[in-house]
């Protein structure tokens, strides 16, 4: 970062809104003058000091560690103090840097959103503290180093709310526990000292707003300024709930995953016509005859009928799935069996090991989630 460039003008387009005023939200523009490497937050504070003291913005450390200044810059969520003015300008559509409050949370004033109403409520939902084992050890808990390294990724969270802001599941279903809180849940589920991992997982798997409501859109992975990758943590929660704790949840989450894996093992390719009924009814050929699968079939009839009418799906294709040729299918099944037979789950977490390009020599990859399958 070149810090020697002279100050220049930047136009900030700020979303203003005061719910108590009864006025509609509006856009306000201010031209500030700063060096290109300075932050959007510094720009906002200059606008506030020079032009309009009533601009509402929350901030504290100005060093990307307190998590107070979460906003949307040019439509993307992040920390105002962690976004350089020149980068923000580059990504703007029309030469003006747009700053808005985060989404999915009510606005208190201008760029300040109500974190209590959404974010903190959801964090509290997941019992965000360690539930110790009993009897309490006489001295300290002794923990395998690698298993603690694994949870450092979730510990990097600074509670800024950027992931919550853009969660697409939460956008349509505000009840969803959401990325930040579920990443926090993994912090304790992944901690070998916690005594209630099974209970935590069961709670989060059975909750209709829990781990199986994540739509896998990567928005939170992209939003997080700290590399927490909340969605990856949610996938780990699912993996532990299903594979390690065998929780057969009422949301079809585990059944869907199990059916998918079985169907690909059986044919090498996915047989979609079987996936839906098995997700509801259970992971076997008989799954489609379960009452839940039948109810779902009836509900889907408008779509199914049209698909058949338009010859999008033919009865033949629905009954006889496409499959790989025998030698290839056997090779694929061999891979399934080899991996299944491993004593430990081999999971590579690049957040932990980094890229070979950045290391002097290749690093042993098997750090990360090492729980026994």
């Amino acid at each position, binding site marked *: 970062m070149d810090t020697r460039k002279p100050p220049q003008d930047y136009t900030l387009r700020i979303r203003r809104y005061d719910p108590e005023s009864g006025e509609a939200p509006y856009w306000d523009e201010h031209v500030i003058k700063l060096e290109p490497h300075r932050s959007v937050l510094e720009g906002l504070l200059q606008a506030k000091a020079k032009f309009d003291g009533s601009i509402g913005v929350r901030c504290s450390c100005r060093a990307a560690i307190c998590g107070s200044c979460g906003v949307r810059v040019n439509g993307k969520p992040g920390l105002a103090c962690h976004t350089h003015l020149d980068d923000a300008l580059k990504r703007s559509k029309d030469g003006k840097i747009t700053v808005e409050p985060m989404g999915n949370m009510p606005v208190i004033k201008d760029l300040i959103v109500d974190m209590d109403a959404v974010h903190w409520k959801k964090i509290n939902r997941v019992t965000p503290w360690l539930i110790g084992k009993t009897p309490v050890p006489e001295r300290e808990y002794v923990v395998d180093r690698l298993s603690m390294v694994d949870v450092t990724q979730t510990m990097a969270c600074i509670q800024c709310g950027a992931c919550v802001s853009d969660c697409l599941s939460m956008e349509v279903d505000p009840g969803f526990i959401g990325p930040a809180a579920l990443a926090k849940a993994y912090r304790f589920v992944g901690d070998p000292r916690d005594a209630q991992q099974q209970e935590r997982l069961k709670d989060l798997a059975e909750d209709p707003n829990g781990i199986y409501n994540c739509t896998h859109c990567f928005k939170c*992975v992209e939003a997080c300024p700290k590399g927490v990758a909340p969605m990856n943590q949610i996938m780990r929660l699912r993996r532990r709930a299903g594979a390690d704790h065998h929780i057969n949840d009422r949301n079809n989450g585990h059944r869907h*995953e199990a059916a998918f894996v079985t169907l690909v093992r059986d044919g090498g390719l996915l047989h979609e016509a079987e996936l839906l009924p098995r997700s509801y009814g259970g992971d076997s050929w008989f799954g489609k005859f379960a009452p839940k699968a039948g109810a779902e079939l009836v509900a889907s009839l408008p779509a199914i009928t049209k698909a058949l009418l338009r010859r999008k799906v033919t009865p033949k294709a629905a009954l006889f799935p496409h499959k790989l040729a025998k030698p290839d299918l056997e090779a694929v099944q061999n891979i399934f069996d080899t991996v299944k037979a491993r004593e430990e789950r081999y999971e590579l977490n690049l957040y932990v090991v980094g890229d070979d390009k950045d290391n002097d020599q290749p690093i042993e990859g098997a750090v990360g989630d090492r729980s026994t399958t």
Partner: protein
Amino acid sequence: MKVAYWPGCVSRGFTPELHGSMAQVAPKLGIELVELDRACCTGAGVIAEHSQELADTLNARTFALAQQEIGKGADLMMNICSTCQGAQSESQERLDANKVYRDHVNETLSKESLSYTEGIANKNFLWLLVEDYGLDRLKEKVVKPLTGLKVGPFYGCYIVRPADRLGIDEENPRDSYLSLVIEALGGTVIDYAGSHKCCGFPIITMAKDASLQMAARNLGDAQAADADCIVTPCPLCHLNLDLQQPIAAKLVPTPLNMPVLHLPQLVGLALGLSPKEIGLNKHVVKPTAVVDWSASVIAGVGGEGGGW
């Protein structure tokens, strides 16, 4: 141009018109498709959810098969599914980053005498069109420009996020390529809120209402922005946006009637293929606006001085 072609499962299952239209479009463009018919499902993120190593090994096998074709003269590997692209890119990211891990995975593949060498070029048809085929060359092939057709892009999450994994940067703004292609084909790009959002498909069996709400909202946004149709490079998005549209429509007050095209279908239209040749008759939501547009262009070309 010759590509090691991975069609995916859904393009040969519930959206046969996708694989079908790609097969029609490729010769028109002069792209030779060498189908990877020995390869298996990418896992679509679900197998990775079950076991990362399993998903990575299955995808490494596909890469190894593709590399055999590349050794025999194919330029690169190509797919026609955002979800395949995302799942494969995720596996590739881990395989390419760590030699110890790659060796471990190759050890499993060695039983079949296969091995993956890091750094395969694997691109969705969309990326290939812009980066390898070239928009100028594409424009030259257009015989029936999509003049007056208003098209809303819909990417699918897996092909736009996370940006660094998918190689999206200033040099390759892959998250804007659909607009570039629509323009190159002569169509009008419709900018609407849902273009980069989620179709909801991954949670259709777990949270059906939320899933269909997502689909309905995106479709409604495109409709409100006056789009004639949506185009997507992802067959899974197509399932939620097209196949499920009649059910999704019940969740919102506005009636929905938004045709959803696969990317090769849109390209095919501009290359002069008939709606039937590209399988538009197989959609659940009849692409009436698109078919009518197509007919009006033919009438226009036939009439003196353009009759429309």
